């Protein structure tokens, strides 16, 4: 599904990071771990197509990122990738339902996979352990754990091929983290989707098929 080769990124402050090559197939769950500042978020942004490639290549479902313009990459991301942040995943002035619906807002491809959006949203939040009643709730009234689940629902809506999650459990306590990951892994569809999660917490490694530790593998900075 996804293959990255020889990725390097030069930051504005002059530091260059060389990333290890990644290969992931449908159904696989990859955990990327590393210290702060080692480039994990940059790597996710490159895979998401939000940052232009400088050096190296990314191939996703036979589509080469270097052949694509910025606008095409944005469209590609909308069609194929669901993204989850560490915190502040949700737009505060939209309610739960409206936030989840953003997942397919920019993608006709994902929209076409959802015949009844309301029903699909209800299904997703139920499988993530949330009550249907929260759909019209303001975001401010949700706990951090609930907000993260809503973010996952948005990322999964319309069945994108790849879920990218950047430290989604950092703000959760251990029990909530376990519950959260149980629900995410139960809801994600291994027959169609893959997941790449970034976290500094190696204790969650058992949830994943592969762990890429930036501290140990080839990820290093080139000055």
């Amino acid at each position, binding site marked *: 599904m996804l293959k990255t080769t020889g990725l390097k990124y030069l930051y504005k402050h002059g530091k260059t990071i060389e990333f290890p090559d990644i290969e992931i197939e449908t159904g696989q769950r990859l955990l990327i771990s590393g210290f702060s500042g080692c480039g994990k*978020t*940059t790597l*996710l*942004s490159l895979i*998401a197509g*939000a*940052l*232009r490639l400088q050096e190296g290549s990314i191939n996703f479902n036979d589509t080469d990122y270097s052949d694509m313009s*910025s*606008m095409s990459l*944005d*469209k590609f*991301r*909308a*069609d194929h*990738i669901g*993204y989850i*942040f560490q915190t*502040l*995943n*949700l*737009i*505060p*002035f*939209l309610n739960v339902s*409206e936030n989840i619906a*953003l*997942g397919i*807002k*920019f*993608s006709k491809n994902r929209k076409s996979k959802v015949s009844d959006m309301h029903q699909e949203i209800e299904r997703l939040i139920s499988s993530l352990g949330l009550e249907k009643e929260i759909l019209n709730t303001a975001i401010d009234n949700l706990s951090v754990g609930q907000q993260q689940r809503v973010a996952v629902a*948005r990322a999964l809506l319309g069945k994108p091929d790849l879920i990218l999650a*950047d430290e989604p459990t950092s703000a959760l306590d251990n029990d909530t983290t376990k519950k959260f990951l149980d629900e995410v892994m139960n809801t994600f569809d291994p027959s169609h989707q893959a997941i790449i999660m970034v976290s500094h917490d190696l204790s969650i490694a058992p949830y994943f098929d592969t762990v890429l530790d930036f501290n140990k593998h080839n990820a290093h900075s080139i000055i």
Partner: protein
Amino acid sequence: MLIPLFKSIWSRILPTSLVTISLMASMVLLLSIERIQQGAEEGFNQSISGVDAIIGPRSSSLELVLYTVFHLGRPTNNITTKTIDEIKLRNDIDWIVPIALGDSHKGFRVIATDSNYFEHIKYGSNKSLKVSEGRIFSEISEVVLGADVASKLNYKIGTSIQITHGSSESIGSKHDDFSFIVTGILDKTATPIDQAIFLDLRGYELLHLGWQSGRKVFSLDNIDLSAIPEDDLNPKTITAAFVGLKSQLTLFNFTKSIREYPSEAISAVIPGIALSQLWSIVGLVDKGFELLSWIIIAISLIAMITLIIASLENRKQEMTIYRANGASPIFLGGIVIYEALIIGLVAIVGAILIVTIVTYFATNQLNLALGITPSFKLVSLGEIRIFTIILLAGVLSSLIPAIMVFRKNLHQTLG
């Protein structure tokens, strides 16, 4: 996308409202100036209506209009009633109303005329002069007051007044040998007619029987007024005459023939043309206010752009989430432009509604107080043009924060 856009604006409702109100207020100012200017120009041009031409001694047309319509300045010459009587015989004439100016009472101009004045001279959109109290004069010792004269001097029907020779109240210039009785007070017209006192031409002639070269030679107290021959009271000269023609088509021929009148140096002025020329001078003042309004609008637009730029930092999360879900930087720039468009539209619609409602309720008061009838309409073609320019300017200036958003998000990670 409109719902999230509106919700985004609502989440920043206080600063957004302040900017919208500021923009709206500046547009209300511009719109009000436009409409008042139009109403004032209309009112100005309708200070007198129903009059096709004004005949007077040959002089500048503006001068003639100034002293016959606005009672400003002093006539430098008179014209003979013999000439007017000859002109009256023309086939194209419907009516002629003579007037004589020169005297005053406590600063208010006295207009000597005949009772036809009140039948033929109109104001505004061809409204007839009417008395609010009493009646038009029928005797030479009777006067009719304009509305402002009566209210400012607290004169009523039956009040006795004496006229001053000339426009000042200097000693020795009063016609203190003859008093007039107020028989009528005119309705308010919001024109110079309100500040005038009207009396019969024969009464005016009587006043000046004992005067020569601007000085009283003998007093009327010393003569038997009833013994004065009727003919002696018919004026030999007048200041000017208002003319109504049977057909407007003959107007230019009429003015040409008056200009070429062989027996006396007279001319005929078309009041509408002269008033327009006068307005083009007077109306320059409004251009200054209009310029000021545009400056205020520019300042409000700058405030709007400043607000949008200032809000971008607070909207980083919103923008990043949109970006993560596939929105392009162009889309994010578009949100900023749409917001400016919404603010602009709300300000425009609000300004139009406010001005229209206020105009609707205040038209009567403005007309009575200032002689202005602001045009009551939802929006004119000229105003649509102005608002389009303002909206375009707002949208174009919002390109600044839009480009900032675009460039920022082109190279930012999703962290």
